[in-house]
């Protein structure tokens, strides 16, 4: 057999792609996120000080050369605390999003693949979760399990889960009717393999971007809960907790609240901007 192929060439291959311009906003966001991630993994690279070291005579130092972000009421270095806090905030954000996504995948698959009744049941459950203010839900959890990192993650994850579950369900419904799912059935693949190898990965693809943004959102939520005293307990360096502690001194020592707050805002903003950028990049390639 020769490799004779007499095909008419398709439309001229478009080689001229637009020059890849990483926009300023996206590169700043990605840069900042990288710093936060490094700070989370190895805080001692940025801050040599001990975030918990109490030096009473250095209390309420305004930002300066010795203490870049100033010190708090116990004389702890806020810069070190913010840097060390990145680990916890980021961990809570990631863990909560992962938890939310796991719940969402289970519920979404049940709704999208189960029968009419299961789907309706899942729908009701989601509506109840939606109708329930996440804050009240979180309070409920804290009331049951006490405050701490674990309940904080669970509460934040549960609050985010219904939104993701709806998206997963919609995606599953769309993907299950795709031609390649039927082709896989016709090939004789077992249903379980089709779900894991084709349905779920394809359904999740458009959610990657949402997840990136969701991490930022979860950090805000977790910080809010910590701010209310429902999360990490002081003196743990956690951005929300630091905000909460600084609140009492906001009139005289703005830096106690300003810097942790700034990092919450910048981190969330960066995940959103980076997520958008990712979305634009992926949309060009997918479909």
């Amino acid at each position: 057999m020769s490799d004779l192929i007499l095909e008419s060439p398709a439309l001229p291959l478009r080689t001229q792609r637009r020059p890849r311009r990483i926009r300023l906003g996206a590169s700043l966001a990605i840069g900042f996120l990288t710093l936060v991630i490094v700070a989370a993994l190895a805080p001692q690279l940025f801050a040599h000080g001990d975030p918990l070291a109490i030096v009473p005579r250095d209390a309420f130092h305004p930002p300066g050369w010795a203490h870049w972000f100033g010190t708090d009421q116990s004389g702890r270095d806020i810069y070190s605390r913010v840097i060390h806090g990145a680990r916890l905030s980021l961990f809570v954000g990631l863990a909560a999003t992962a938890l939310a996504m796991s719940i969402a995948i289970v519920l979404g698959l049940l709704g999208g693949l189960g029968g009419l009744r299961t789907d309706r049941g899942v729908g009701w459950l989601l509506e109840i979760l939606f109708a329930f203010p996440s804050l009240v839900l979180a309070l409920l959890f804290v009331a049951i399990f006490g405050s701490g990192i674990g309940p904080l993650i669970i509460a934040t994850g549960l609050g985010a889960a219904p939104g993701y579950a709806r998206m997963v369900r919609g995606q599953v419904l769309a993907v299950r009717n795709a031609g390649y799912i039927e082709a896989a059935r016709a090939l004789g693949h077992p249903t379980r393999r089709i779900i894991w190898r084709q349905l779920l990965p394809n359904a999740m693809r458009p959610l990657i971007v949402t997840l990136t943004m969701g991490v930022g959102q979860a950090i805000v939520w977790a910080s809010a809960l910590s701010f209310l005293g429902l999360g990490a307990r002081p003196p743990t360096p956690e951005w929300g907790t630091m905000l909460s502690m600084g609140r009492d001194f906001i009139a005289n020592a703005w830096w106690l609240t300003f810097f942790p707050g700034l990092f919450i805002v910048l981190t969330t903003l960066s995940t959103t901007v980076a997520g958008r950028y990712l979305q634009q990049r992926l949309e060009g390639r997918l479909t």
Partner: protein
Amino acid sequence: MSHKTLIVEGLSVEFAGQNVVRNLSFTLEPGKTLALVGESGSGKSVTARSLIGLAGEGAQVRARRLQYGDLDLLALSDRQWRRVRGKDIGFVLQDALVSLDPLRPVGKEILEVLQTHGWGDRASRAARVLQLLERVGVPEPALRARQRSGELSGGLRQRALIASALALDPGLVIADEPTTALDATVQAQILGVLQAIKAQGSSLLIISHDLAVVAQLADEVLVLQHGEVVEQGSMHQVLTAPRHPYTRSLLDAVPAEHERGTRLSPGQPAATLARAPRLDQPVLLHARGLGKRYVGPDQQVRQVVDGVDFELRAGQTLGIVGESGSGKTTVARMALGLLETDDGQVRFLDQPWNGSADARVAEIQRRALRRDISVIYQDPLSSFDPRWSVGQILADALDVAGIAVPDQAPRIRHLLQQVRLPAELATRRPLQLSGGQRQRVAIARAIASNPKVIVCDEPVSALDVSVQAQVLDLLADLQAELGLAYLFISHDLGVIRHVSDEVLVMRHGQVVEHAPVEQLFESPQHPYTQRLLGAVPRLPSAGVALQVPPLEPENAVLLFDESRLWKIAI
């Protein structure tokens, strides 16, 4: 109506340095019809679009002369163009489904053209809309004008689109693939409408990939290949004495004109022989009294398939032909065991395969036999997981066939070779392949498990004629090499005639005729088959004039969209 001449001299279109159309010249006299024929990528649509100033973003249109009457089409500003489009030059777009606003009644769509150009007053415009719909053969125009495009059948949508192009009686009508994707009888009706437009004195520029379609209409033909005119002449001359080999290969590729067992594409000699149904072969797939019902959104039960029987014997091809909505795809899905039957049973390799109620077969029971039956779809791209490369797609199929991972790589190379694709393609994604290459990959996947039966659901309907010819030849070769049996579904009688040993003609879910292929085409018994055969556009050299079948009420409205229904049913 104005009577102007369209003069095109030395037209070239460039996209970012790529020459898509090169040095094209023709003259279209008033009242004449010119056909631009070529395959995808030949530049025919771009040519048509540059004649209405819509060549596309980044296009550089150059010509020595581009003139319609006394209008210089090269010098018009955007504002001037808007006045010309619709009024002087009407344009019928290719895809009626996407070209009509799904949220607006079609009457409004036509009305808009009249309003934009400030034609008449309110009352006369309303009357004009109905008159136009009537002129293009839309039954009950007052009712149809109020319906949205989604509620109309493909043929009616195309008519509505033509009506909007005709709204202002332009002297020149450009129709880009006006009948592509339509059923044979509907296609014949649309060609009838275009013939009537021509008879009323408009000039017509028709763009098509199918010489047989334009043969009925055109006075003159331009054959385009890779943006260049390879042949230009009167319809009669091009059909009877084509000068360029490409034109000849286009004519040769029309399957209806060629007997079974002859090659459609140039190159290799025939690998198969013409055959009659052979009853001595074992029956592989056996269907008795197949039936399928759906409950529509209006709670009405629709019998989509009703009492279909067939036997598919080893090494044979059973063709199922019918128009959209005839239930042929539903039959294919039941034959594949992907859709449970409501009545009747299917047996595969003497095992129960599909049935209902007591005879219900669980998927687990079917799984052992799955590797003996496979499927090729009309749209291969959507049947591939978008994340996978060609190699991964084939590896996935080999997994089912029980081929261990280390043995897969040589098998993939062999499969690609069997479908005449270079082995390097394994690393590419289907998105980067041409339509014909994608279908070859789908065929490679279908033969990966060494099946006995392949169900082919409109496998060549989305391909250019010459590519279609190559794919049909490939299927014939594989049948001869591997002894495959095909259940071949198509709306295209020409294709069905070319590939089948036996043919089922389906209509409204029922088999109206079942006969060996020669008998069916030589002496069709059922009036519906006769009508279907009459509607096939053929080259005039075959000596048959196009018969325009009457518009049937069931062709007018979309009774149901089969594909949408079975998706809900999964």
